[in-house]
């Protein structure tokens, strides 16, 4: 159960997953809240569609599908890094306060700064101020945790401090909400529900760059990650610089999750659950497999969630976060029940 499965079958699984990803991506372009014929969608993609068909495909569906792939992959890899770093199956970007830090940034901006500087929703500053605030919030929390991590020898203390910090941040956000008016409250609540649409290609580029950078660092950390699974003492004996590894992993996980949260709002559940799904599918603990596997599974799941959230054909939508949680939680429950616990993999 612990060793990696044979290379051949892992390769086959990867091939199938990539195929699934491609199919879902295509399906996400083909189906939406309004009906478009397949040939109209194809024509629009190659620049020869009707004017409105082209806007719907190129400005609504394509950016959303791209965002789903990037955000899903980033959240999953971030979660994987956190779980291995803390050797805890429940760790994830939300547990360490990265998501709530981003939320605090947004809440502060939305509820105090924008009214103070009278930046109105829709003004050029508004969209970017939310994104920068989320980034800054995630960054501040990450810095605090890294400072603690640099001083603590025991990684479990860092996890607990992260949890406490997340709790304190939620209280501050509640306090801000308590003193804010209904419009701002609604804005914030809708932000917390997650959002994949309404991103310009410019924003998608920036998100993609941040995620690519984070993923590249994560790939370079595959060896120390595998060593960490064998325990910290073992890691030291094979020459892993524990302190440095920790800091790099924390920073990488925060860049990934913080960027996604900044642009899309807190995407629930993916970070914690997807690495488990990847472990289950590949029966492996090898990060050379788990890293790309988590990324692809994350993208697949967010695409599926997006497909469901548009309630195809009805015109109405539900928040994507509710879908990721509702389809994801049963999956995790099933894994835990089927494996009689997942703790011993760490």
């Amino acid at each position, binding site marked *: 159960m612990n060793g990696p499965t044979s290379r051949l079958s892992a390769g086959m699984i990867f091939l199938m997953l990539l195929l699934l990803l491609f199919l879902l991506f295509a399906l996400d372009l083909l189906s939406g809240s*309004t009906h478009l014929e397949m040939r109209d969608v194809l024509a629009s993609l190659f620049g020869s569609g009707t004017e409105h068909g082209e806007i719907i495909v190129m400005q609504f569906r394509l950016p959303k599908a791209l965002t789903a792939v990037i955000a899903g992959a980033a959240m999953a890899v971030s979660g994987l890094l956190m779980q291995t770093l803390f050797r805890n199956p429940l760790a994830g970007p939300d547990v360490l306060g990265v998501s709530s830090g981003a939320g605090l940034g947004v809440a502060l901006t939305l509820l105090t700064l924008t009214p103070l500087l009278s930046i109105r929703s829709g003004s050029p500053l508004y969209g970017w101020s939310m994104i920068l605030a989320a980034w800054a919030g995630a960054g501040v929390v990450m810095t605090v945790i890294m400072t603690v991590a640099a001083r603590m020898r025991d990684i479990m203390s860092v996890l607990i401090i992260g949890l406490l910090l997340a709790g304190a941040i939620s209280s501050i956000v509640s306090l801000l909400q308590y003193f804010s008016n209904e419009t701002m409250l609604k804005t914030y609540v809708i932000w917390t529900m997650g959002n994949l649409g309404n991103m310009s290609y410019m924003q998608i580029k920036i998100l993609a760059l941040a995620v690519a950078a984070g993923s590249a660092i994560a790939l370079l950390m595959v060896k120390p990650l595998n060593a960490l699974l064998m325990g910290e003492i073992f890691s030291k004996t094979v020459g892993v610089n524990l302190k440095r590894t920790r800091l790099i992993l924390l920073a990488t996980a925060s860049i990934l999750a913080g960027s996604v949260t900044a642009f899309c709002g807190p995407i629930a559940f993916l970070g914690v659950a997807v690495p488990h799904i990847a472990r289950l599918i590949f029966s492996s603990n090898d990060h050379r497999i788990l890293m790309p596997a988590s990324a692809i599974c994350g993208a697949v799941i967010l695409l599926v969630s997006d497909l469901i959230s548009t309630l195809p054909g009805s015109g109405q939508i539900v928040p994507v976060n509710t879908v990721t949680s509702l389809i994801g939680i049963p999956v995790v429950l099933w894994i835990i029940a089927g494996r009689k616990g997942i703790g011993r993999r760490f």
Partner: protein
Amino acid sequence: MRFSFILLAAILALYSCNSSDNSGKISADAQRAVKTKATRFSLEEKDDITRLVINDPWQNASGEQLVFYLVPHGEVIPAKISPENVIRVPVSRMICMSTTHLAALSALGATDVIAGASGTNLVYDASLRKSIEEGIIPDVGYEGSLDRELIVALRPDLLMAYGVSASSSEQMRKMSDMGVKVIFNADYLEEHPLARCEWIKIFGLLTGKKEKADSLYSAVTENYLRLAEMVRDSSESRPAVLLGAPWEDVWYISPSNSYIGSLISDAGGQYLFDDLTAPNSLPFAVEAVFRRATRADVWINPGTAGSLDEIAEYDHRMTKLAVYKSGSVWNNRNRMTPAGGNDYWETAVVRPDLLLSDLISILHPRLLPDHELWYFMKLK
């Protein structure tokens, strides 16, 4: 309710087959009779005592009924009436939880009864703002964060609340345990602007200005119906109207049977979602709304946008809409305070005729050539 509308529509459709030349008029007349009356309250006067019944006072309430007896000061309360349901009129100290309540009292010249209000920073009326700044009208806080001690200390005869949901209403109801009488105002749930305006009758009864309230209501109603009839009798085509603005992935769509839906229809507009009937707004995917919006002629109330650029900054895809390119975009931000108080959310409730004039002037400028926009402005 819905079934009866379908039935009505079916009958009207049959009828209109026989008299196709004036079918529009007949269906509108018949529907107006059903829709313009307030449905959420009823009054029953007997001797000097008025029985006020408020039906389904908050969203998604069904079968909920609140009964009050308005008894003049000094009058003996009949034995069969429980004293806790009695409100002595005229009241001299009232706390208002909504700016629309302030507007009703202001229209009646009864602002001296306002003992406190909620959301005072968003009040538009200049004389009320003065009272607020001078501390004559203190702020009692918001629904979730009511200053209960202040409310009790203000010793109000009445607290005029509005309930968004049963649970939030429960908080208000707790105020009555502290000896504060609470009435739920459900005007915002009325589907027709005239029905919403009709609630001024309750304010009239409460403040001893019944005649004034009744005459105000009938003048406004007469004016409104006259304007609506003028539009119906004209040969103007009905421009397609897009309403609201997207918020991230979501575009909340008011159904055709809503306050604003009724206004657009009465002003001679063709609401893009006139096939949608629902008890409240529904979340639509922006893509779906965009598809319909491509055939809009006029765009009204695009969120909080104060200019065309703001709409573009918020969602650049909207710039592709013909209605955006034509610049026929209007928002209700003509009368605002720097703090964000908007008269549209205040006096428009008691002046639906003025609101309708604005919309007619936007949709059919030829019909009201001399009208100057009051609540609305064209975005640049």
